[in-house]
């Protein structure tokens, strides 16, 4: 059907942004590695318009990368916070232990030495400034600096596990300096051996 008009009209071409929704649900897939500690099954939804759907035949298989094995790590969800261990904080883009925080860590080390049956997980965190990947590295350095300090105070290194959350788990979500200062931290969790 033809639309007719008596004149040429100057107009904007609307950007077509109609999301033709619909995603084919795929069966749950299993992880190549060990079962998820959360027990959550992972399923993968195929986005519409996937390139394989234009291909003939399923291109499954291919080269399998050997999953690198690693030293056993304790399950993260087994750890819990304990009131005796106090967080320490860091300056922006820094991972050295500040003098006041050294005193906090001394107290933490004393507690850990008097509770030798506990393993400790040190979480390294960043504020939202800086960028994602760099902050994962920065959080790692903060957790590591904290670990090194505790080891220097006589805590056995093999009791300590570290994990970086980068900027992914802020304690405080406002966009202010006081909030950011709270987020640049090392946090302690413990579990019995």
């Amino acid at each position, binding site marked *: 059907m*033809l639309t007719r*008009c008596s004149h040429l009209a100057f107009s904007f071409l609307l*950007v077509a942004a109609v999301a033709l929704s619909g995603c084919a649900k795929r069966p749950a897939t299993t992880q190549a590695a060990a079962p998820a500690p959360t027990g959550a099954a992972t399923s993968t939804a195929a986005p519409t318009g996937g*390139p394989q759907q234009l291909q003939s035949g399923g291109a*499954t298989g291919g*080269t399998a990368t050997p999953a690198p094995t690693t030293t056993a790590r304790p399950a993260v969800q087994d750890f819990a916070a304990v009131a005796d261990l106090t967080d320490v904080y860091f300056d922006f883009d820094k991972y050295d232990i500040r003098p006041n925080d050294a005193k906090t860590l001394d107290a933490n080390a004393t507690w850990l030495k008097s509770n030798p049956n506990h393993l400790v997980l040190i979480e390294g965190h960043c504020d939202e400034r800086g*960028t994602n990947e760099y902050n994962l590295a920065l959080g790692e350095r903060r957790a590591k600096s904290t670990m090194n300090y505790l080891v220097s105070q006589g805590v056995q290194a093999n009791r300590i596990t570290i994990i970086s959350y980068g900027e992914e788990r802020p304690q405080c979500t406002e966009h202010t300096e006081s909030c950011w200062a709270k987020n640049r931290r090392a946090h302690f969790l413990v579990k019995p051996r």
Partner: protein
Amino acid sequence: MVLVTFLALAAPWSSPAQQQQGAGRATDVWMNVTGGGSKKLNIAVPEFTIVSGIDSTGMGKVLAQVTGADLTFSGLFSVVAGTGAIPANNPALLEQSWTEFAAAGAHAGLHGLLTMRGDRLEGEMRLYDLVTPEHRMIASKKFEAPIGQARRVAHKIADEVVLQFTGEPGIADTKIAYVTGPRGAKEITIADYDGAGPASATHNGSINLTPVWSPDARSLAYTSYKQGYPDLYRMFPFERRPDQTLAAFIGINTSPSFSPDGKSLALTLSKDGNPEIYVLTLATGTMRRLTRNAGIDTEPSWSPTGRQLAFVSDRNGAPNIFVMDAEGTSVRQLTSGGFHTQPRWSPKGDSLVYTVRQSVHDLWIVNVDGSNPRRLTNGAGNNQGATWAPNGRHLAFQSNRNGRWQIFAMLADGSAQEPITRGPGEATSPSWSPRLP
């Protein structure tokens, strides 16, 4: 090549709207004035013609709009759209339409023809030269897809038009992967490059970060906390195939970057004490260490030749961009002053885009020799996490200029900044796919 002719002839906006007689016309014609540039090619994109099958969903109109939007997005064209499709097999009405479009300033005409057979859709593009009086056809090509992927046919038609005029296919038939959700609960979503059809690619309820496409556009590497720790995985979103675990060492397993040949993956591990850059050979699992430095070394990005990598290091203080060769030697510092992160090497090889943090984050671009650093975003919230389109002409990035994180796209000179994601949630960390197979 047609390009030379058309660009030479392309004139500044010519005639204002002029009265036309309606009788006997196949289409009504109007011009898109949003482009505004005198150097763009004016291309007529009337509604696509249904050759056979029932078009119950208005596909002829929608797909012409999709193709038109692709051509506008390319930055190369101003689209002259029209209502009403040209009837099939009617050369006289087709010629009449081209005459009218040419009178309205169009330099080229795109005629799309759709054939529906069962659940298959065939789309044919026919490209006409409207500058010469005979309006001859200069190219034609057919594409086929399941009818559920009709938009891909429109994107492929647009990419073919771009190919005809520039010698390089367009980038409309691509995907963008990005991270959705608030902090603490992030999943990966894959959408068409224009934001259409977003679909979840992870559902594990943990934190999933930094998806990066492999060069064959069939897989993505990403960091996930689904096993508790930040480990590196590879997903195959278009196949019934489980994730591979790429790296699950003690410490962080982050910042994946596939080598251009797809055989290796550069990544950041802290298993040997502090964050360092390694290269994993995917076929064998062999891990090769590239950096040895007491500071943070992270965010490797391959050059398109595969001979060099850019990366971030705080070895001299604040984080800056460095370049090394693929063996980890010949390290040179590219930027200074910091806080510079997220280097992404241009597919053309001549420049790198990166993020500068001052009071807020903005995107900058610098030549590979470190010269001519220039700012691409300015004064509109935070802008970071850039990813190149495969042709090196566009960038996608994350911006919170509208109050929440969204994925934006722009031309590589910083112009034409437009949001891609429009939903209510947060969208970050985009990765633009290579052209789909």
